[in-house]
């Protein structure tokens, strides 16, 4: 088992516990991007807890801020803040709310929660990194529902026009958004061809295959002239049988029984 897979198992346990304890929503989106986040933090991102503001660090923005639980759990496991903080998820005066927040937390670059913001902010960071000749990357994790937002496409056009090859966008394509299937609401496909026609280098990959994810990220970092998008085919609610590929996973927290089952499976 790879290190990122080991991390993913730990994250799954932590995230399911957090959501169950807080009776919070967005279980489906958390579980669909959990493998992606594990590979990023274990294998790809140059971010260190002892130097969280290092100018040379990679910048990671969770644009799909509703799945902040996954990043909070990752940062706690990586030593950015005490793991006991995870027990306060969504509680009164907690530092870690349902949507990701950078206030009072080291390792979070941007507070998000409304879709369509992350890529633009990432573009601003990428311009600054290039201006200062810093060889760091900006990685932005987006949802597929987020592809409905016009602001994202404004940023997509701008990034390729300015050849911001230090940007890697990652789309968690779990194919279900708030009120139905993406195909039924606004059909995104062919999503890869759309990004390609906007001037991006496109990779499409199984978003739960750690080996493939790692290989693709490493390839993406070598882009010379174009920004890169990695479209990850994922399963919403991955790992909880009654939630997999179901709309309800967007809203329902894991039940006590599901939580117990996950903990036992992981043992």
């Amino acid at each position, binding site marked *: 088992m790879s290190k990122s897979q080991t991390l993913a198992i730990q994250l799954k346990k932590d995230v399911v516990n957090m959501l169950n304890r807080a009776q919070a929503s967005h279980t489906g989106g958390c579980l669909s991007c959990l493998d992606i986040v594990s590979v990023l933090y274990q294998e790809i991102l140059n971010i260190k807890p002892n130097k969280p503001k290092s100018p040379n660090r990679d910048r990671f923005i969770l644009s799909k801020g509703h799945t902040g639980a996954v990043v909070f759990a990752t940062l706690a496991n990586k030593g950015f803040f005490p793991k006991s903080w995870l027990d306060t998820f969504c509680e009164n005066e907690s530092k870690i709310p349902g949507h990701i927040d*950078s206030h009072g937390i080291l390792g979070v*670059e*941007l*507070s*998000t*929660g*409304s879709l*369509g*913001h992350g*890529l*633009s*902010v*990432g*573009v*601003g*960071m*990428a*311009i*600054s*990194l290039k*201006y*200062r000749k810093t060889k760091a990357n900006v990685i932005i994790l987006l949802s597929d529902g987020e592809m409905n937002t*016009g*602001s994202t496409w*404004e*940023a997509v*056009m*701008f990034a390729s026009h*300015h050849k911001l090859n230090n940007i890697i966008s990652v789309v968690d394509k779990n194919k279900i958004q708030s009120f139905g299937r993406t195909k039924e609401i606004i059909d995104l496909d062919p999503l890869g061809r759309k990004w390609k026609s906007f001037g991006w280098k496109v990779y499409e990959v199984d978003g739960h295959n750690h080996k493939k994810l790692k290989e693709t990220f490493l390839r993406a970092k070598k882009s010379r002239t174009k920004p890169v998008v990695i479209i990850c085919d994922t399963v919403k609610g991955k790992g909880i049988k009654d939630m997999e590929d179901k709309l309800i996973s967007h809203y329902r927290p894991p039940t006590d029984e599901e939580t117990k089952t996950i903990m036992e499976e992981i043992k």
Partner: protein
Amino acid sequence: MKNPSLRDRFVSRLIEYSKKNKNLFLLTGDLGFSVLEPFREENPKRFFNMGVSEQNMMGVAAGLSLEGNKVFTYSIANFATSRCHEQIRNDICYHDLDVTIVATGGGLAYGAHGYTHHGIEDIAIMRCLPNMTIYVPSDRFELDFCFDKILQNKGPKYLRLARGKESDIYQKPIPENIDIVEIEKCSEITLLVCGPILDQAIECSKHFKNKGINIGLYSLPIISQSLSLKIKRLLGRSSIFMTVEEHKNIGGFGSFISELAIGMSRPPRIISCGVSPKNINSIGNQEHLRKINKIDKSALIKTISKLLRTL
């Protein structure tokens, strides 16, 4: 030598500062033809025409500022505030970032262009955002005064320009250690004015002065909660204040002053003069629209004359 316009003055101050501060960036939403070119020539790597993409522009400004840069954005009032309000709210204001949103066409400056170009709600929707300070200079001297403060302020800022070609109102620079400019001392009726409409208020005040009646007059080019105490102190010195602004009389400068007055144990009477929501269909030049909305010199004289008769 002819005095530079407000817009040209703004750009020359920005260029001057950019020579010392290599972290200064300027983004424009595809506006600024014949105004911003000198900055672009001087700083090609720190100037971006973002296209007609104001939401992206504000997000990019936030990203640049998160990296430690001082960022200015440039657009027309409504495009710079309404269209991208959430980006300003979440990305810039919530993170308390050093971004100055520069708007032209504040107020009724673009009157003949129609309602889409009337910047008459911008102060209301900027004023309610966290960490935001608003600057509304009336002429180039107030612009310089505001610009010096903008350079020192590391939080989100909104700089509201009008046509950018307003004539001089003052004859000399405004001292930097004041926030409220006294033009005529407080009297029984005192005008509090925000922005280029100051010229009408000055004419109005002169009219009464010629008749031997003193009407107080103050210019407040900065709207910020940090001035609350100073403003309340001023409000305690008279019984009637008339606020004058080129903005809807909902949520803007008049509302700002009224909200402060409400918190006083003995609040003065506040009369708010601004653009009436009833007149949003009116088209015409700035002079015409000021008249329709009763914020021109003659209308202000009429309102004060009526008030004086009641005293």
